[in-house]
């Protein structure tokens, strides 16, 4: 590890990035130091921790040990119990069974205040900052109920944090005016100011661009080097490779493996997370896991040899290698026909937010029939607004939208649907379906007239039709009459997607973050459906913040940056990933 902490937040990379772990071969410095720390003090010890929400156990007899001076990664798919584990340690939930020990002392926080008092701080996935307050006010919140907030002391401590961790902030900026990356820094500084002995980070990288992730990992290392313990919750293995010393893998609420990272191959971690051998995984799914270019070493007999070339082809191991193997196949499947008619044409679309800032700045793009056009970008650069304008839920200030030659710029959603525009909204539970209605009702809500009998709704026919869809799309539900909200996120998404793909005619599908929050199996199902639809001649606009996924699925990718659409970049081109990365961070803008 570099001994001298850098004074800038964009710190030089602490170690070569996603170099795959090879069991024991050429261990780098951090890994050996991890081994040295084997008998260091145990900061946190969890024993048989169990928590159920309703009937389903979110965490089932989980035990783990976090040592001082280490970054301990907690890995698992969505719904594996990672967040629950953090919330139990932070006192936001109380365990049903099991014990916790902090520095050897029994530890049973009843509320977050208890955890904070015990020196445990947490960086939350969705931030815990009051948006209408300034940075300083947010940081002062933790100082208790005092008449005079210690503003001056705060500024001094901020300087100290800036010196130690290279995190400098403008204390007078309002939080809701800050980009997400900076908010993340505020959240971390808020924790650091409390001088925690144990820092929990719950999926901290979801909203960050690659450079920000890099510096966050460097910060994690520094915190560990200062003698504290860090618990880093993630489902992205590249992050584990960068910052972790030890790992614990959760699956279905149970601890399925773990230990010092020096002794575990990355492919084994994936196998533990997914419960399947890596070689059996679709390359795309591996990409979704942040496994691009990783070698499924020692797993499939044919695995290592095939991937070797892909890794070697990558530019000198510095940047993340492009998933060369997966792209041509995907592109070939969808870009067969040469001249294609435009399914969706967007010209000069401009949208302003209520506060007057520009959300979309003269965005123009065209989706051809049978094409998957990806929209990449760090969140908050206008993707949400683009999806909303196309869905008809947000009105553009200027510009036009044409669907298959029909002008739908000002068309209400119903007309868009009639003309063949399918929409998978970003917030599927609130905009994509009605939680209290049944799966069947949600599937056919727009076509209830088709199930009329004596003027009344023929529920039997409705449910029968729904059962067919449920079977065809492998939607896991007890019954098509079950309320939508009882389904898991992945299955809700399958229902929404099934409904939209059943439109007749279907000219274009706008899918906003369709794989967000889904586990690997569900991601695979969604992606397969999208590819099938494209193969049938439907144009698809796929808005996603997972670049690896887009690279594997899309034909072309545009990047949203500060409301502008940059690109497009063909996914088959050499160096596409690097080019996209530069566009996302504005380096090429």
């Amino acid at each position, binding site marked *: 590890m570099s001994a001298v902490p850098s004074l800038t937040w964009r710190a030089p990379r602490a170690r070569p990035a996603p170099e795959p772990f090879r069991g024991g071969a050429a261990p780098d410095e951090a890994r050996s130091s991890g081994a040295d720390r084997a008998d260091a003090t145990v900061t946190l010890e969890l024993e048989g921790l169990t*928590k159920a*929400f309703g009937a389903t156990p979110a965490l089932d007899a989980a035990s783990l040990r976090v040592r001082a001076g280490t970054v301990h990664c907690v890995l698992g798919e969505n719904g594996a119990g990672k967040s629950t584990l953090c*919330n139990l340690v*932070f006192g*936001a*939930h109380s365990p049903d069974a099991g014990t916790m020990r902090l520095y050897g002392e029994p530890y049973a926080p009843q*509320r*977050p*205040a208890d955890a*904070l*008092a015990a020196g445990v701080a*947490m960086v*939350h996935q969705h*931030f*815990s*900052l*009051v*948006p*209408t*307050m300034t940075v300083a*006010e947010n940081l*002062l*919140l*933790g*100082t*208790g*109920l*005092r*008449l*005079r*907030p210690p503003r001056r002391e705060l500024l001094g401590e901020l300087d100290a944090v800036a010196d130690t961790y290279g995190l400098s902030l403008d204390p007078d900026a309002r939080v809701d005016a800050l980009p997400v990356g900076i908010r993340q820094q505020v959240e971390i500084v*808020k924790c650091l100011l409390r001088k925690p002995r144990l820092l929990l980070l719950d999926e901290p990288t979801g909203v960050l661009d690659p450079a920000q992730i890099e510096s966050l990992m460097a910060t994690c290392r520094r915190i560990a080097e200062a003698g504290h313990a860090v618990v880093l919750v993630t489902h992205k293995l590249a992050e584990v490779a960068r910052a972790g010393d030890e790992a614990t893998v959760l699956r279905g609420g149970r601890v399925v493996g773990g230990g010092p990272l020096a002794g575990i191959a990355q492919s084994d971690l994936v196998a533990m997370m997914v419960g399947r051998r890596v070689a059996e995984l679709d390359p795309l799914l591996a990409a979704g896991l942040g496994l691009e270019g990783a070698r499924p070493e020692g797993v499939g007999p044919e695995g290592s040899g095939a991937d070797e070339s892909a890794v070697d082809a990558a530019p000198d191991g510095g940047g993340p290698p492009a998933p060369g193997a997966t792209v041509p196949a995907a592109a070939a499947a969808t870009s067969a026909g040469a001249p294609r008619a435009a399914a969706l044409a967007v010209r000069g679309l401009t949208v302003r937010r209520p506060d007057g800032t520009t959300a979309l700045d003269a965005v123009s793009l065209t989706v051809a029939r049978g094409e998957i056009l990806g929209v990449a970008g760090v969140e908050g650069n206008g993707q949400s607004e683009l999806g909303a304008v196309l869905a008809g839920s947000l009105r553009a200030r200027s510009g036009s939208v044409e669907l298959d030659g029909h002008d739908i710029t000002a068309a209400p959603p119903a007309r868009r649907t009639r003309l063949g525009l399918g929409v998978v909204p970003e917030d599927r539970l609130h905009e994509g379906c009605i939680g209290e209605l049944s799966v069947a009702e949600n599937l056919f809500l727009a076509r209830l007239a088709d199930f009329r009998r004596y003027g009344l709704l023929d529920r039997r026919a409705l449910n029968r039709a729904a059962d067919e869809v449920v079977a065809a799309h492998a939607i896991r539900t007890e019954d098509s009459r079950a309320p939508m909200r009882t389904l898991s996120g992945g299955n809700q998404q399958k229902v929404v997607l099934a409904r939209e793909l059943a439109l007749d005619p279907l000219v274009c599908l706008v899918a906003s973050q369709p794989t967000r929050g889904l586990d690997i199996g569900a991601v695979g199902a969604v992606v397969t459906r999208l590819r099938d639809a494209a193969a049938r001649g439907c144009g698809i606009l796929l808005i996603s913040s997972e670049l690896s996924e887009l690279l594997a699925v899309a034909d072309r990718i545009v990047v949203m940056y500060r409301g502008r659409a940059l690109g497009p970049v063909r996914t088959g081109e050499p160096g596409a990933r690097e080019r996209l990365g530069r566009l996302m961070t504005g380096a090429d803008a």
Partner: protein
Amino acid sequence: MSPVSDLLSGGVHLALPVLLAASGELISERAGVLNLSLEGMMLTGAFASVAGALQSGDATVGVLCGVAAAVLFAALQAVLSVTLRADQVVVGIAANALALGATTYGSRVMLGDDRNATVPSFDELPVPGLSDIPYVGPALFAHTALGYAALALVAVIGLAASRRTGLGLAVDAAGEDAETADRSGLPVRGIRYACVLLAGLTAGLGGAQLALSEVHAFTDNMTAGIGYLAVVAVIAGRWRALPTALACVFFGIAQALQFTAPALGVDLPVAVLVMSPYVIALLAVSGLVGRSRAPACLTVPFARTG
């Protein structure tokens, strides 16, 4: 005195009970609890202060009784809306109906015999010199002891609740983003309890001020909606201290117009003047008087999930 001076002075005097109640309500709403029961708290305070003053023969004891009763009443709102997470609007309306019934009945039972007895009250103590300043003097420097105390309390609350103090920050955090406040280690429910009880305290004082400084008696439903007016003032003041205070004074002056309009040569039906604060309130809520934004967690009960 000139009619304008009368109007100002009358306006401030009429505004004072509303101002008191609004100051506590402002803090409570910024912490995330809407007390429609403010009306009931004021009525309870007015009744209990008169009853206490009559029983003890001392106006100060009366004030203490009024405040105590109103704080107890506020505790009902707090338990229901903070601990039991009941709908704050429903609780408020039901509580007001309860207060109206209870005080009307109470006045029959306790004040029945000595309806016409003189209630020990506060006398005006004009500050020598200052109260002779034209226009402002009678408005600001001719109050009762309770009135001065009320003005001072309102000023202290206004200052303590600004975001420049740790308390103000904690209150705003509880009302803007209760979950974040909780995760920052702040006792969200404790803060909300304290703020509702504070609203009870100031509303009780407001009721006592009305009964013992202005009217010198208790009559059925004597608050007649000024508790709602205080809630309206907070909305019209967009949850900020100074605009809320100005709204209260404005409402006071609108009420005072009823009495001074003839002298000013304005020929308007009294009912129109009585209506005016509510018309203004509707305009304020509808966003016609500038855009208003309520605390994000106002009326949203807080509970840790799981």
